């Protein structure tokens, strides 16, 4: 194992050196760092040009400059990185610029990566289970449409409909009758195709989906929820119940009454804790409190599982813990929404809260609840944009992977043993289907760090992509190389990780 990692790392260094040589020289010769000065009519033009030539050693050929750069970069190995200075950023050391930009990019891609994986895999699996159904074809069609859409165009549309118009809608939520009809139709058809079965079941599920979605929407509009969104204790109980049903369905099956009770008990516990928690949230608005409570949430779940479980304590504890954590998140959302009216007063938007640019509202005053709502308002659109792109790939991979596994002998054996379909899918097929996905996820994260260039640009998000574009625009070679080095290293590390994870997940493979 160790020798594998060492060998891979050595190869990595060689690859990086070779690649950096190519990138450095391409960048250095691609543009002209003096371009802006050459078009200037300023009286001190020549002085400025001379200054910059001296600073960037432009009189040396790019190969010589590369050697200088490599000398500084090599110091990274002894922890004293010198990646040069960025002339377009007032000679700021490139390492500093990278640190800030990388933090911002990680913030941007974390949620979208998680959402894309969870939903992509879920949808992919459902399409695999309903292979060649209308649902399968519809999802396939839409994922490919999404996959092929240019992100800057999606972003413009998202801003128009997801922010500007949605914000107007939040202020004055009037939905015409056909709006309800369309929502009902979409949810009804979706539920119908997911559930499947004979036509009676289909009709029933269509009815449930349509009525429930229209009903919920109607209640939200009539109670003025869009103007003043809240969850409240009743909302916590309802969503908690829904979470319990869904998680139990996937984890233990609805027939397992004790599992349902264990999970349901955690929801009740959170509902009971709701009132006292309000005081805690008010007096100690700190992020560490939220973290501690998250651990408590797991504890509550495990405890509940222990109490209700017999010989299946482990399984119940796991189910209850998941339900407990999710319900806890609803409690947090409830608290965040409490500041909603104040928040809308403190931001510059005319209506609503969805922002189209940046990571925060400049100069926003308020505690962590305001900050959380603010982050949500700013992250929503870029997250959707990024999710839509990677979502498509995950559904395809998950679908084909699960299909392949479902046709294997051991799955047939499992079925022959008389296991329920749920157990066969979730416990036997799903796990093995995830092995190739794990590799893809690792590679994808590496690519995303540097690959969100356009998304960052259109959402005015100051991350790695911006740095790269800036550097390339002005032929600031040091900045471009800093970007290259960081994304290159991340990509390579995740590559190695993928190999190791692969070996860990699949006992048939051994790294050596």
């Amino acid at each position: 194992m160790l020798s594998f990692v060492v060998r891979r790392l050595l190869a990595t260094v060689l690859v990086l050196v070779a690649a950096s040589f190519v990138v450095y020289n391409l960048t250095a010769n691609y543009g002209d760092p003096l371009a802006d000065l050459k078009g200037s009519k300023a009286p001190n033009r020549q002085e400025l040009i001379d200054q910059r030539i001296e600073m960037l050693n432009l009189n040396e050929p790019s190969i010589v400059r590369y050697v200088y750069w490599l000398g500084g970069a090599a110091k990274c190995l002894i922890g004293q990185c010198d990646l040069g200075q960025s002339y377009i950023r007032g000679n700021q050391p490139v390492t500093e610029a990278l640190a800030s930009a990388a933090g911002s990019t990680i913030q941007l891609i974390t949620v979208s990566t998680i959402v894309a994986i969870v939903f992509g895999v879920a949808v992919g699996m459902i399409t695999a289970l309903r292979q060649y159904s209308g649902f399968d074809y519809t999802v396939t069609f839409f994922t490919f449409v999404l996959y092929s859409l240019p992100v800057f165009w999606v972003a413009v549309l998202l801003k128009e409909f997801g922010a500007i118009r949605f914000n107007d809608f939040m202020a004055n939520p009037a939905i015409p009758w056909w709006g309800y009809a369309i929502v009902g139709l979409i949810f009804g058809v979706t539920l119908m195709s997911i559930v499947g079965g004979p036509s009676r079941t289909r009709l029933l599920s269509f009815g449930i989906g349509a009525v429930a979605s229209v009903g919920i929407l109607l209640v939200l509009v009539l109670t003025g929820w869009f103007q003043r969104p809240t969850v409240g204790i009743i909302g916590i109980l309802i969503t908690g119940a829904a979470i319990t049903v869904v998680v139990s369905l996937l984890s233990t099956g609805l027939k397992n009454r004790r599992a349902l009770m264990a999970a349901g008990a955690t929801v009740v516990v959170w509902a009971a804790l709701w009132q006292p928690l309000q005081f805690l949230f008010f007096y100690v608005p700190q992020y560490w409190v939220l973290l501690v409570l998250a651990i408590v949430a797991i504890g509550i779940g495990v405890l509940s599982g222990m109490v209700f479980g017999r010989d299946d304590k482990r399984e119940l504890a796991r189910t209850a813990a998941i339900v407990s954590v999710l319900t806890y998140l609803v409690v947090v959302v409830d608290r965040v929404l409490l500041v909603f009216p104040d928040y809308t007063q403190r931001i510059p938007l005319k209506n609503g809260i969805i922002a189209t640019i940046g990571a925060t509202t400049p100069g926003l005053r308020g505690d962590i609840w305001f900050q959380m709502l603010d982050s949500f308002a700013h992250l929503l659109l870029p997250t959707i944009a990024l999710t839509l792109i990677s979502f498509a790939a995950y559904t395809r991979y998950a679908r084909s992977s699960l299909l392949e596994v479902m046709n294997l002998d051991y799955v047939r054996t499992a079925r022959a043993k008389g296991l329920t379909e749920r157990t066969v899918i979730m416990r036997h097929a799903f796990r093995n289907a995830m092995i190739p996905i794990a590799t893809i996820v690792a590679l994808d994260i590496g690519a995303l760090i540097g690959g969100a260039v356009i998304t960052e640009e259109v959402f005015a998000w100051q991350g790695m992509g911006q740095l790269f574009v800036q550097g390339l625009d002005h032929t600031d070679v040091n900045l471009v190389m800093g970007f290259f080095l960081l994304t290159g290293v991340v990509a390579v590390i995740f590559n190695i990780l993928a190999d190791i994870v692969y070996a860990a997940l699949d006992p048939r493979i051994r790294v050596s």
Partner: protein
Amino acid sequence: MRFTRIATAGVVVAAGALVLSGCTQPYESEVVEGTEITIAYNESFFHFNDDSGAGNNTANGNVKYMVDTMFYYYDDEPKVVRNTDFGTYEKTSDDPLTVEYEINEGVVWSDGVPVSGADLLLQWAAMSGNVESDVAFAPATTSGLSLVTEIPEISDRGITLVYDEPFVDWELAFDVGVSAHGTYALAFPEEYADVQSAWDAYSASGEEDDFKSYSDAAKAFAEDATDAVVTAIQDGDTATIGALAKAWNEDYAYTTMPDNPAKFLSNGPYVIDEIAEDDYITLAANPLFTWGPSPHFEKITIRTIADSTAALQALQNGELDVWTGQPTADTLEIAKGIDGAQIEQRQEASYEHLDLTFNNGGPFDPATYGGDKDKAQKVREAFLLTVPRQEIVDKIIKPLDPEAEVRNSQMIIPGVEGYDKMVEENGSATYAEVDIEKAKSLLAEAGVTTPIDVKFWYPEGNVRRGQEFELIAASAALAGFNVIDDSEPNWEFTDPSIHAINPHDVAIFAWQSESLAISGSDQIFGTYTDPLLKGGNYNGYSNPAVDEGLKELETLTEPEDQLAAQIKIEQALWGDAYGLTIFQFPGLLVWSANVEGVSAMPLSPTYLWNFWEWTPTKAGE
């Protein structure tokens, strides 16, 4: 921020604003509490000293324009307006050129220390390049001040600059920069420890008393510090000056809010309040400010937004209040569709022009015709007569700016004083209309065989210039020119190390004027001997009369003389069929219903020029 409190709060009189002294006017702050405005620029602030080579960037200049006061500014005409609330300057002698600057009493830095002669002396030391030191100052420019070689005399609040030679742009050559005591504090931080701890106490508490003790500590420190700066410069103490220079060059560079208050001392209507790295910078009204018109917004935030569609959608969503940029058909449409927003379409300072190459052995080079200057002249004139400037403006620019016109001067921006007189007299009228017949007869007179190959350069990939090329090529073909697409993306002809002589016969690109400075034309129109030092003279133009005129121009200090000299130069340029100016770049300024009083200005700092006149509106409530 919805301005819910505007109506009730009304106009708040800032506590510190009523400090009256004997000779200043009573001052009333008009800052409205709780009002904020968000504007955008496509790059982030990174350097507080925009006079330094490293900090010389519009993103920094924008911030400095609002946190500092200056002896003059450009209004929207644009013309130079003297800022007499801040200080005065006067040319007291023409021989030698002597200019006296005096800052008004009561003008203070944001820590309460008066702006003094020491600040002005440091600025001279840094920007003139005439001071010896262990570490050299690295200013963005020394033009003008380099002519002031003697150490200037200073008074309590003034300085007297004596130029060795007359200098045409003396009025634009000097202004207050960063503070002397702040720079000293950065150079010798250990002496600043008391002030720093007083500042730390104030920034933790925000109490007025703590500000007072910080201000007192700063004043006590500044007394010695300004003396030390003045003494070092006057005595030529190269070690101390070197330390100051190092601080001046490097220590003002930051992208996050610094802990050290010396790094953001300013003397204008606003002070830096908050910086989110690469994302935005927020300025807050300076409570000590009394020397000039009061601004109205309590806070101004400059966000970094590079993408124009993103900026306009943000404006539509209410996240942004003002945006400016070059319009495209798309952005213009979005801007016009924004509810309640107002737009102003005004020309920017960049202008498109076309230059003929005089020295590359092409059709416009006398050498091609065995040194027959007359023949080459006729070919050049014939070509310029075929360039459909009006058609270019009508077809390409008018859709973006209905009021666009053909530009007819090489040296003066349309709208600026003197432009009309210049156009009347400079000889540009010859090329007012396309005249194919005259072009044909000129070619016949010259006795050249048509078609004549003309290698035409434009930046490859630039759609607008590609269209211009098409229009010109079609028109020139009628007279017998075969215009060849010689486009290339890298502007290689501008790099003398690649092409000592421009290989293209015609080049079309834009010059950008950044100020009303008159000097600087010599590097475009002046004769050069060493191709590596040809500056912006990419077309090998050389005319002794122009050289002489340019040289004379540098020394004229009266506006009328300057205009007369400029007209003489342009007459020679147009007479030589140097090339053509075509149009001014269209600009687009959009602002939301939350603000009124915004207006466009072609030069830097563009629409920021009258930020103190921006007023929150009722619609913002």
